[in-house]
């Protein structure tokens, strides 16, 4: 103990005075099982160097200060759609050459192989994750009714009694409320942009207001549903998947009305390890690695060719079960689903966030 402490002090002192020579790539990501899957699929398979994953809390605050002060600690960051756009617009990320990335086996370029339009030259595709409703098997059986199937059922506390677990911010909830109110998935953003569209969504949210339990950490909705505190909840599809696939939790997912979000890799502007970081990004975005992540967690590769790799190699999950039925961006899951539109949220996100905070506090 004492020895390791001494060593620790020495190491820490070293870090304070001389920055360690960075012969490796540092990637900031979200932690937990997700980062573990990145570690296994990207870092462990990368032979040209070492990639170290560290956790961050999201947002661009830290990225901004690192870039503007030139004190760059991270080479690559795993960012949400909104941050991917704002950061590139504001010059926090490197713009990357597009022709160096691995094309799909049929020759389609990476950008065309990506399932959503690539917003700018800073980003490299990662995965889709989604907000999705789920419940514990048997919750609604005892009440002598059919189990909930659609997003409208999630907002129907009369026929499907019990509390609902939802998150404490507005993203996805607006889209889901509109779909539950009868808007077709394809029209959701048109309605949101039209006069009264947001009012309509909030009116729908009002119908469950008294039956809502809010969560803000990703593990909470699972706990809420498991303990029976709520009968249905929204959660990140990967969290539910991990509980089902790895621990055999009796959860049922209703893909109807799910809202998919993008996840991108970007490189910090001015990083001293530009070449190494680019090499890692090329590696991590290749179809094989895109697919490889799904061995460990059920987030969907953004590249179509990644999905093809998975489908061709089923059972693909590390425990030896099929993973395609658990992918948010393939098959039945996509029947009635919306890709969140980050451009809409960039325009209106701040105003909606204020309105949602007011709504929660009423």
């Amino acid at each position, binding site marked *: 103990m004492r020895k390791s402490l001494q060593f620790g002090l020495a190491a820490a002192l070293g870090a304070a005075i*001389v*920055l360690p*020579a960075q012969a490796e790539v540092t990637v900031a990501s979200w932690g937990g099982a997700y980062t573990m899957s990145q570690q296994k699929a990207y870092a462990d398979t990368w032979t040209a160097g070492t990639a170290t994953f560290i956790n961050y*809390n*999201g*947002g*661009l*605050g830290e990225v*901004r200060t690192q*870039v*503007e*002060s*030139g004190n760059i600690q991270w080479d690559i960051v795993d960012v949400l759609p909104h941050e991917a756009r*704002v950061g*590139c*617009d*504001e*010059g*926090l990320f490197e713009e990357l050459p597009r022709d160096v990335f691995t094309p799909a086996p049929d020759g389609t370029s990476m950008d065309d192989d990506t399932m959503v339009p690539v917003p700018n030259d800073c980003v490299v595709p990662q995965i889709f994750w989604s907000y999705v409703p789920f419940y514990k098997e048997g919750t609604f059986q005892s009440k002598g009714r059919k189990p909930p199937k659609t997003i409208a059922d999630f907002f129907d506390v009369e026929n499907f009694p019990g509390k609902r677990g939802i998150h*404490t911010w507005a993203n996805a909830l607006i889209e889901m409320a509109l779909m539950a109110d009868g808007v077709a998935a394809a029209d959701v953003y048109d309605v949101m942009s039209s006069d009264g569209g947001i009012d309509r969504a*909030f009116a729908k949210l009002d119908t469950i207001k008294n039956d*809502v*339990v*809010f969560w*803000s950490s990703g593990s909470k909705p699972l706990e809420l549903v498991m*303990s029976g*505190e709520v009968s249905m909840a929204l959660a990140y599809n990967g969290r539910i998947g991990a509980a089902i696939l790895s621990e055999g939790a009796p959860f049922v997912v209703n893909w109807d009305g799910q809202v998919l979000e993008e996840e991108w890799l970007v490189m910090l*502007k*001015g990083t*001293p390890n530009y070449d190494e970081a680019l090499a890692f990004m090329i590696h991590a975005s290749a179809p094989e690695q895109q697919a490889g992540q799904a061995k460990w967690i059920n987030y969907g590769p953004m590249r179509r060719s990644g999905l093809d790799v998975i489908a061709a190699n089923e059972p693909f999950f590390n425990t030896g079960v099929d993973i395609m039925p658990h992918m948010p961006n393939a098959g039945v899951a996509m029947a009635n689903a919306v890709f969140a539109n980050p*451009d*809409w949220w*960039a*325009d*209106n996100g*701040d*105003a909606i*966030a*204020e*309105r949602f*905070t*007011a709504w*929660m*506090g009423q």
Partner: protein
Amino acid sequence: MAIANASSAPILTADGTPLKVSLKRSMRRSKIQALFLVLPAFLFLLVVFILPIGNLLTRSVDDTLVNWQLPLTFQMIADWDRANIPEEELFRAVFVDFTTVNKFFIESNRGSSVNTSDAAWWVAIPPKGPYREAIIQINPAWGDVVTWQPLKEIVDRSLEDTGSEKDNKHNQRRAPFDLCSELTPLTNATCSKLFRALQNWDGNSAPDEPIFAAVYKDLASAQKILTGKSSTRMNYEQPGWKGLVRTSIRAFKKMEGPPYKEAMIKANKRWGEIPFWESLVLMKDNYTMGYYLNAVDRRFDVNKKIQLQSEERRVYVMLWWRTLLISFLVTVGCLVLAYPVSHLLATLPLRYSNLLMICVLMPFWTSLLVRIVSWMVMLQQQGVINDALVWSHLLSDENRLPMMYNFTGTVIVMIQILLPFMILPIYSVMKTIPPSYMRAAQNLGAPPSLAFLRVYMPQTLPGIGAGVILVFIVAIGYYITPDLVGGKDGRMIGNMIAYHMQKSLNWGLGAAMGSVLLGAILILYWIYDKLVGIDNLKMG
């Protein structure tokens, strides 16, 4: 030290100076000595505490960035009638502001010093060159060697050998950033092309075309970043700007030349909407009060009259009230709990009271997060308290009380965390009240309750005052506790500040809310000082 010596010795002064003068002199020496003792701590706080906070507060009014982006527009919009869609002239100004980099070359390019009739604004730099002519036409100073020399110096300095390879690499990596922050208001733009071009320049001969080409291209990409940043700012004033700017930049590239009005409205119909133009009027000064108004759910209308924010966006006033309400409830709760306990501690024999004092001080010394975790275990719906209530049949299993992740949770946890801050000052005052006073009052015939109210309690008021203000000051700025246990309706203003600092990156609004909070706290601090004296603050 010397002070004691000096003040005890000077009965006779060798040079015959009067005692008074000598004493004065030694006093002055002591005073200077004392100042030197405080100086290190004072300077330290000044540099790493007071300056940073001051710097933060300036952000709450700073609006320079968007004024860098739209100098012509802001100069011209002053003449707009504010009722109809502006004329072609203003559209042209917007187009030029977004598409040209002339502003970086013109000397008087900011605020009211912008002269729209100066032809320099309208010089068109050919996108494919040659650049030299055009840039010199904009500002002849760029033809002089002296204008370039400071930039060359930045480059040269970065190429000096520092002896450490790492430092050399770092300096060379930073130089393009330094060049750009010399030429633009941005700290994250890179002038790499200029950096390379200046390396090949001898520093004396007239700068040639490649250098001009480099500076133009670098400034064009800096302009893109400036656009990105200012469109974020503009979006705060009027939601929709971000998308409008993004789509317009693409459309601008295809526009051949004037007239712009129709083409722009065709490219995005928002150019034909009055609110967007009105919002520009509100940003046209380098300093804005807009963030402060936003922090209290107000906004300027186009005539700079203060208006209420639109109804569904009113959230900050509610949060301020909630913050005050939570702080108030916590203060009252602490007082009610602390008063009897302090009394007990002050009146018990020392060996018992010391033991109980440990109970009071224990939470004080335990990590805040540990206490929060403990309360989660206690108060959550599957927690100890609910379990106990259900087990004792006071509550049915379905009706477990929600006491965590909401308002109630925040208040309970904060009371426990802040209770020692209330007990300690009250206790230290009660300790000084001789018990004989109460006895005397009772012997004179007062019933115990009257004796307490008329004799004992008034004497404890200073302690109550100290505790109340201290708890309130600490409570009002809380962040961690409401963040972790606040849930849907237990978040406070501190959480909103953190949100704007870290997530939404609306630093202006965050800073404005911070200064309001800080102002309130400094007033309370001043009252505390008047009532109690800050030197009387004690820790256990």
